[in-house]
């Protein structure tokens, strides 16, 4: 209990309570779901928005970053839908089962729900009323009481439920596109995906916004059964005034394979939480990401990889390029539970500072309770090498272009691990656009 902290409510906390009270009756779900929402919101109310005094939020003071609570978005109008269609253009060449949400609302005309046999893609709002809702709102992997996750469970009205049957390889990727259009609102989304034994799927989640001071909150729950494989590529390209909170919670069975990449290209402040739990023996996870930020933007990656099985390996690699007064935070922890022998974990966080005012905070941690493991972590923060820049300039390449080439090379190492060529191009083009805008 912390009576002192709870005695004063911030404007954002008060507004969230009011919004919840008025929205509650209209949120989809049966009585069990309603109860789940209420419990989640009560958990949030008890804790409040975390300030830097809460260890997990020490470098990302959500109380300071979230001064107010935006109203829940209404249904998008024709103009917004047209804008969203334009915003999705970079993805047009990617053949995918596509589920598009504009301001958190499903938009059928921008979606293509066709799937091959053995793959099912349905809307979360239907699951919330047919008895599967409580399960869809409880990931069981992210830390109890996490504010971003609790708020999502309380408010989320729609999302996507993906199911890949055992032994089935989804022939097309499944793309969940979230577009924000309008001036300012809050939007919540959730993807609940299960890949059955021996199944295989590529999930794409994108967040796009070109203007507006929004607050977005997304949760992806991914359950990868024994012998199954899932690749997840997330592209966060929110408007530069948006506060973006996102959580990826993955449970891996035995001999399962996870490969994930997260691009953080937008948002005023973004926190990407990734929680991966190894629950079966002999599984692997590759968890990577890249980020770009200028001005006074803030990018947080918070990662916990929990090895609770024998012989699993995990690779974590995050790269961030920072300009202006931007700040990046990397909190990564590899936990090796008692008995999780033969664990092989390697984590690396690298930040490139392109200006005097940029700052990178890295907090890598290992928590090991088994004795036969190989684990390591590293973190680097540095500027571009002047010698290399001179070599490029001596060939006639101007300073900014030389810097751009080197930043591309820096992030290229992780971007190149994206297997889907079209998707890799979308990410590469976004990186180039950021670099071009700097010059």
């Amino acid at each position, binding site marked *: 209990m912390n009576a002192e902290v709870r005695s004063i409510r911030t404007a954002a906390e008060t507004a969230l309570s009011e919004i919840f009270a008025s929205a509650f009756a209209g949120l989809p779900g049966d009585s069990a779901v309603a109860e789940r929402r209420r419990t989640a919101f009560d958990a949030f109310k008890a804790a409040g928005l975390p300030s830097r005094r809460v260890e997990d939020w020490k470098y990302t003071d959500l109380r300071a970053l979230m001064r107010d609570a935006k109203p829940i978005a209404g249904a998008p109008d024709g103009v917004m839908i047209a804008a969203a269609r334009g915003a999705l253009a970079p993805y047009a060449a990617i053949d995918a089962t596509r589920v598009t949400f504009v301001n958190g609302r499903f938009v059928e005309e921008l979606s293509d729900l066709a799937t091959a046999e053995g793959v099912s893609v349905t809307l979360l709002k239907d699951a919330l009323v047919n008895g599967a809702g409580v399960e869809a709102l409880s990931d069981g992997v992210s830390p109890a009481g996490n504010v971003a996750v609790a708020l999502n469970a309380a408010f989320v009205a729609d999302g996507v439920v993906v199911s890949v049957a055992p032994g089935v390889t989804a022939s097309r990727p499944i793309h969940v596109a979230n577009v924000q259009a309008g001036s300012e609102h809050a939007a919540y989304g959730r993807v609940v995906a299960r890949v059955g034994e021996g199944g295989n799927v590529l999930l794409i989640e994108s967040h796009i916004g070109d203007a507006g001071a929004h607050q977005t909150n997304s949760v992806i729950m991914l359950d990868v059964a024994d012998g199954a494989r899932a690749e997840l590529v997330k592209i966060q390209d929110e408007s530069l005034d948006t506060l973006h909170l996102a959580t990826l919670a993955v449970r891996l069975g035995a001999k399962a394979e996870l490969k994930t990449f997260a691009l953080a290209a937008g948002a005023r402040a973004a926190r990407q939480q990734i929680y991966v739990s190894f629950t079966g023996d002999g599984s692997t996870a590759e968890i990577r990401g890249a980020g770009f930020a200028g001005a006074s933007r803030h990018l947080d990656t918070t990662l916990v990889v929990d090895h609770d099985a024998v012989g699993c390996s995990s690779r974590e690699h995050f790269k961030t390029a920072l300009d202006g007064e931007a700040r990046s935070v990397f909190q990564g922890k590899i936990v090796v539970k008692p008995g999780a022998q033969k664990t092989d974990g390697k984590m690396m966080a690298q930040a490139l500072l392109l200006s005097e005012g940029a700052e990178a905070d890295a907090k890598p941690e290992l928590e090991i309770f088994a004795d036969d493991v190989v684990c390591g972590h590293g973190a680097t923060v540095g500027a571009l090498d*002047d*010698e*290399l820049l*001179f*070599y*490029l*300039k*001596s*060939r*006639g*390449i*101007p*300073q900014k*272009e*030389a810097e751009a*080439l*080197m930043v*591309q*090379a*820096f992030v*290229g*190492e992780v971007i190149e691990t994206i297997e889907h060529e079209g998707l890799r191009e979308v990410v590469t083009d976004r990186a180039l656009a950021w670099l071009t805008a700097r010059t």
Partner: protein
Amino acid sequence: MLSIKNLHASIEDKPILRGLDLEVKPGEVHAIMGPNGSGKSTLSYVLAGKDDYEVTEGSATLDGQDLFALAADERAAAGLFLAFQYPLEIPGVATMTFLKAAVNAQRRARGEGDLPTPQFMKLVREKADGLGISTDMLKRGLNVGFSGGEKKRNEILQMALLEPKLCVLDETDSGLDIDALKVVSEGVNALRAQNRAFVVITHYQRLLDHITPDVVHVMAKGRIVRTGGPELAHELEARGYADYVGEAAA
């Protein structure tokens, strides 16, 4: 073409060049020889525009254009090329990407448009074949995993593509075996032209067996202390630099 007058330059307040004069005319090849620490490499970096060096006095012009008024990339676009003694490795920047960025940056600086990719590829293939540079090398990160000889050949390839007016070769022979030296020298000789000049910096005479200079200078303690014809190189090879180290110090 290149005119250096009374050049003084220092690094971290330590004077390295102390009143250097050099005149190079179009079509000429000048060799600059000298003992270690005489300032040969500093001269090449000062001309190319490396930030670490401060020019405290004197001037350098390329076809009348004040080099010191230009940034490093502008000097390159004005026609200056430095072949590095130790070409740098840049992982993640493919050699081909780098070559294209350099060629197009210089074209843009001259007000020309980018070279269309097919034309650029054809040009690179032509020049690379003559230097024994494989397609595989062009795809690799710049100089990454290249042998010493491959790195130097890659420098000559850049020179051939960028078609500079003035080429400064900084100890291009260092680290090369005799076969690599031949390939590199042939590459340089192929670029000799009426309207192009070379400044070849070297510690040893052997490079000058392959690239015949018109003028040989001896550099010591930051200045040119003697100038002669190709025979001077042979004299230095036979007698060493001991005389000059003493002379300049006096």
